């Protein structure tokens, strides 16, 4: 649905994007991660046809970015979605519906879907940031978009709203929408996306599933063992781990040694109260890939 091939963007002599190649297939949810200024918003704006790429090729639904076909296929939720404060939520969504050639009467149902049913006839000027973000989501849902480009979509949303937001995204993806979203909240995209793409200083430094990125990075796995009272010293010694406190022992091992280590722990039998295996988090992977690219 979306293909970016060797996209490069220069701003007044500064390279904002360099040779970025990234595809998003129908039904796929791809998270675009990166520091501030890594080029996430720039890439999104190029995809939407808001700014031209310096070189490279982008297609949206088989057409050029910004073309009528592409604009009809794509929906956008900008970072910090803003609307005219004098319009009500219903009027604003009605306008967006009509701009997409849909009936203005559908506004009520859309606002209901994002939890703004009760506030639909209040002016957007009175809305909180989270409510404006919901208006942004409501307009992005108009007309079953085939590509959704969401820039920091959950910023300003409370945890419950975030869960509802990802539930809506899952539904859209099941219906075949391709979703490209950027986020700073790594833990939430970890479970909610199919693929992770990491931008660092304008370069795409990683682009794969979370599992594959973990294997590629080969970061140590952390195992925490809780010992029975009074046995922590013995457990630490026999597993050659580090005592964290009175009951816990921390171990590190490579991905390939994981089973062997767990076997050792199981061998201690009665000395052990509990075991927790913690694979490298997305934060760790993100740091790893960003740093590796910097070297």
């Amino acid at each position, binding site marked *: 649905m979306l293909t970016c091939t060797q996209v490069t963007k220069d701003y007044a002599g500064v390279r904002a994007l360099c040779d970025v190649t990234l595809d998003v297939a129908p039904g796929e949810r791809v998270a675009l991660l990166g520091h501030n200024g890594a080029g996430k918003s720039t890439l999104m704006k190029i995809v939407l046809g*808001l700014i031209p790429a310096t070189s490279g090729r982008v297609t949206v639904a088989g057409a050029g970015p910004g073309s009528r076909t592409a604009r009809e296929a794509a929906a956008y939720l900008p970072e910090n979605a*803003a*609307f005219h*404060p004098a319009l009500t939520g219903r009027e604003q969504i009605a306008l967006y519906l009509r*701009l997409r*050639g849909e009936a203005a009467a559908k506004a009520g149902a859309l606002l209901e879907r994002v939890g703004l049913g009760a506030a639909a006839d209040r002016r957007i000027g009175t809305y909180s940031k989270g409510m404006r973000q919901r208006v942004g989501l409501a307009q992005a849902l108009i007309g079953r978009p085939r590509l959704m480009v969401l820039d920091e979509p959950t910023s300003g949303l409370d945890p419950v709203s975030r869960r509802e937001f990802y539930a809506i995204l899952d539904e859209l993806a099941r219906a075949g929408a391709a979703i490209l979203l950027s986020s700073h909240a790594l833990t939430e995209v970890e479970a909610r996306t199919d693929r992770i793409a990491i931008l660092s200083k304008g370069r795409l430094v990683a682009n794969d599933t979370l599992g594959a990125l973990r294997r590629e990075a080969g970061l140590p796995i952390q195992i925490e063992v809780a010992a029975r009272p009074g046995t922590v010293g013995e457990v630490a010694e026999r597993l050659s781990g580090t005592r964290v406190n009175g009951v816990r022992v921390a171990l590190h091992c490579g991905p390939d040694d994981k089973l062997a280590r767990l076997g050792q722990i199981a061998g201690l039998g009665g000395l052990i109260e509990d075991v927790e295996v913690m694979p490298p988090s997305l934060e760790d992977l993100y740091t790893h890939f960003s740093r590796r690219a910097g070297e």
Partner: protein
Amino acid sequence: MSRVIAGAGAEMRIAMRNRWVAIAVAMMALFALVLSAAGSAPTGRVGADALSVTVASLTSLAVYLVPLLALLMSFDAVAGEVERGTLPLILTYPVSRAEILAGKFLAHLAVLALALAVGYGVAAAAAFAAGPGAAAGLAALARLGATSLALGAVFLGVGYALSALARRPGAAAGLVIGLWLVLVVLYDLGLLAAVVADGGGGFTTQVFPWLLLANPADAFRLYNLAASGAAGVAAGIGGAAQTIPPAWALGSLLAWVAGGFALAILAFRRVTP
């Protein structure tokens, strides 16, 4: 077209809530009333009917007020969207920049039309109340109404262009006030000074009429004064009105309507969100 109308509907709501409709209507009505009261005095001297005199006075009023109203409504059009951060989203919709501007244009033009109808209506009512025979000036009033709207359209377009060039509402407001001052006030003063200095030479006869035609505000004034034959009751550029055919002045005004809007589209296309 349905997209343009959708945009116009939203803009109209915004104009009503921002009190622009109320401000424009109140301003036009107030000035029309003041002019009617002040303009009823010279009727006896010139011998024209009350409404024709009122139209001549309204022409002088409209030439200042209509561009000002149009510029005040238009300066925020693009710069405001940039400032609020609403522009990138709207530009990802399947709607062209020309369609976005056309929606704003329709709505603002409707507000102007309403203000003009109320203002000129008040003036006409006052003229009819002042005495019989005012019906003779109705054609002049209709011409004035239509060309006032055209004059407003010119300055709406130019206002959008400046709004797009400035990209910040504050800067855009400064630019449109500057433009108003130059085109509506200083331009005529400059021409007047040049004519006086020229003392009836080549400039006055060859260049001056064309310079008047080139300015939409002057073209508007020329057309209304010449067409209504009321040049006699108007001071200032009345003399020049007799040397230029009214059709030319009207042509210049209409060309400016198209040119102003084209300028707005060109400037808006250069804005990168």
